[in-house]
């Protein structure tokens, strides 16, 4: 029997998929094929997946409109979550406040002025319970954007779900848990890199064994780009970090095929439209090749790079904030044409404050217009075959390979070691800062234009947009809530749980998740659990460099 051609294979896979209701034709009535291209070319759903990971792409299921939200105390964010679900959002993504992201309690002196400001404040199981009250966790997937305390937050989430009668095996969602990019870009670190990687390893192993529907890491280029990298650097650093996590899991005795399908990715959608689309296409192809050829993954799911996209916060202007709606729409369209699995669209007011409810709704509506009015979701990889986009895809792939080679060299053949050394030697941080500076100079020299900032200034005086106000009242309320929990809990149980956590942290052969879940159930605070770990792991201090 002759081998199945790529086209035949695509056809077979496509025919197996259910299709969403809809008219797959243009407004003039011209019928649309699910994909276009030469019969001997690449097809979506086929290795190396340049054209998409699924054969039917958005004809089966539109991307998940996953809106990132979180502010104030848990009950405030719970209300916003319910509003998102009512408005047609299909996934949740939790933004935590700075103290929570850095593993500090709301009553820690360093938390002053930061509680509930740029995300929701979570101190104990009581807050997690309020956060998800009335939301069916077995039915909606939840993404938690947290890194240094990711294992602690996973423990709290599991504890809360089990308390409300949902078994951990039924929980679907994603933990960001990408600690490498914290040292490289986002700078929300607590422990030194190698100790942090122990916690990442424990979450990978725990979810692989006990939470089959959970994505253990969202390998994130978003923050690398927001911190100032180029698109090529975002692509290469992110995939290199992904390789590092695969190697970490392998060291822990897991096969590539046990871990790779649980990694998802998270990319930026910046304003350079075609470069972004080429970036997503190159990312899929590079990941597939590296998983198959370099790490010898044998399962297709391991080769398939699935990703979330967020429009670029740094592209938003404080001047004439309403025009950010247009920027975000263009960026979101790039994500969709690039085949994203889920999407967050920024709100127009985010260069000024956290989004107001109205601004967040308009951002979601932007996605709905792309999904339901524009017809762009009917054909997979609509720009595939464009001479320009194909060449740009190839060039980004080549440039990323050059960076992989540099990282591999730093690690003497190990991407894991290369990523950690690159952090310790300030290599990633330095490159990102250099790229940010070069871009800023091109704005300042007038070589690049930003509408409303360097040109087209008429309307800049119009500043009547109503923004969300977060008062210090939330900080006071959250401290009172925490105080109440501290009074009501069984202190002996808390101390015992923290003691066990310290002991087990000292033994690298132990998985820390069970001890963390017990501590969460005993109402130990995020700050207490993180301090107990820091007693053993130490704390990371970044050497300042310009």
């Amino acid at each position, binding site marked *: 029997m002759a081998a199945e051609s790529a086209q035949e294979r695509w056809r077979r896979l496509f025919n197996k998929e259910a299709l969403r209701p809809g008219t797959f034709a243009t407004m003039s009535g011209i019928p649309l094929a699910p994909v276009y291209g030469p019969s001997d070319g690449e097809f979506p759903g086929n290795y190396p997946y340049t054209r998409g990971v699924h054969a039917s792409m958005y004809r089966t299921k539109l991307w998940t409109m996953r809106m990132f939200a979180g502010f104030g105390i848990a009950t405030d964010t719970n209300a916003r979550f319910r509003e998102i679900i009512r408005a047609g959002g299909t996934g949740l993504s939790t933004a935590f406040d*700075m*103290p929570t*992201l*850095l593993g*500090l309690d709301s009553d820690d002196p*360093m*938390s*002053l*002025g*930061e509680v509930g*400001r*740029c995300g929701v404040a979570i101190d104990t199981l009581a807050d997690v319970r309020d956060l998800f009250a009335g939301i069916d966790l077995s039915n909606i997937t939840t993404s938690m954007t947290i890194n240094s305390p990711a294992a602690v937050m996973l423990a709290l989430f599991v504890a809360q779900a089990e308390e409300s009668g949902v078994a951990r095996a039924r929980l679907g969602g994603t933990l960001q848990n990408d600690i490498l990019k914290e040292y490289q870009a*986002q*700078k*929300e670190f607590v422990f030194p890199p190698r100790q942090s990687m122990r916690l990442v390893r424990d979450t990978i192993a725990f979810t692989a064994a006990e939470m089959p529907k959970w994505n253990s890491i969202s390998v994130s280029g978003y923050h690398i780009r*927001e*911190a*100032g990298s180029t698109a090529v650097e975002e692509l290469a650093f992110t995939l290199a970090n992904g390789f590092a996590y695969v190697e970490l899991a392998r060291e822990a005795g897991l096969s590539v095929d046990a871990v790779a399908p649980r990694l998802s990715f998270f990319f930026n959608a910046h304003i350079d439209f075609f470069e972004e689309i080429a970036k997503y296409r190159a990312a899929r192809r590079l990941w597939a090749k590296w998983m198959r050829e370099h790490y010898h993954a044998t399962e297709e799911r391991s080769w398939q790079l699935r990703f979330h996209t967020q429009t670029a916060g*740094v592209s*938003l*202007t*404080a*001047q004439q904030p309403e025009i950010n709606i247009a920027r975000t729409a263009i960026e979101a369209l790039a994500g969709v044409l690039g085949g994203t699995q889920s999407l967050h669209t920024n709100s127009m007011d985010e*260069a*000024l*404050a*956290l989004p107001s409810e109205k601004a967040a709704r308009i951002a979601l509506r932007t996605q709905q217009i792309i999904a339901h009015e524009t017809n762009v979701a009917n054909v997979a990889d609509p720009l595939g075959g464009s001479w320009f986009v194909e060449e740009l895809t190839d060039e980004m792939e080549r440039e990323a390979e050059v960076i992989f080679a540099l990282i591999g060299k730093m690690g003497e053949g190990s991407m894991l070691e290369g990523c950690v050394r690159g952090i310790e030697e300030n290599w990633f941080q330095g490159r*990102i*800062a250099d790229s*940010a*500076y070069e871009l*800023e100079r091109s*704005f*300042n020299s007038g070589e690049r234009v*930003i509408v*409303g*900032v*360097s040109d087209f200034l008429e309307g800049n005086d119009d*500043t009547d947009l109503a*923004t969300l*106000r*977060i008062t*210090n009242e939330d900080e006071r309320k959250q401290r009172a809530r925490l105080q109440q929990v501290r009074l009501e809990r069984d202190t002996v149980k808390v101390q015992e749980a923290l003691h066990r956590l310290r002991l087990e942290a000292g033994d690298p052969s132990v998985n820390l998740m069970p001890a963390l879940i017990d501590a969460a159930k005993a109402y130990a605070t995020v700050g207490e659990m993180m301090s107990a770990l820091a007693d053993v792991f130490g704390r990371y*201090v*970044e*050497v*300042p*460099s*310009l």
Partner: protein
Amino acid sequence: MNTRVLVAKVGLDGHDRGIKVVARLLRDAGMEVVYTGLFQTPETVAVAAIQEDVDVVGLSMLSGAHMTLAPLVVQALRERGSEIPVVLGGIVPPQDLDELRELGIAAVFGPGASAEEIVSTISGIVAHST
């Protein structure tokens, strides 16, 4: 003598793109720049500013804590007998501007402030205060 600037990140905000870019732009303009690193308190910033004998302190804050923390930096300096002016850059809603000025912040730079605007404003503040 060259203008000396201490640029600082106070509180828990790790967004350091802006502060690093601005530091380099100030250097390009001939100023001497000292960077404190992340996670400083108002006290550590005040002590560093006095020790380094700078002409101006530049804070970078994108986490929304500016109304609490920026005035505390001014206060920590004044308590130590220093009159070093403090400027602020970051995500600052327009309705906060008047109150920040009343609390002693000499200038606020929002997103999109140009290198020219930052350099000339800082130069003006330093000329005025010495």
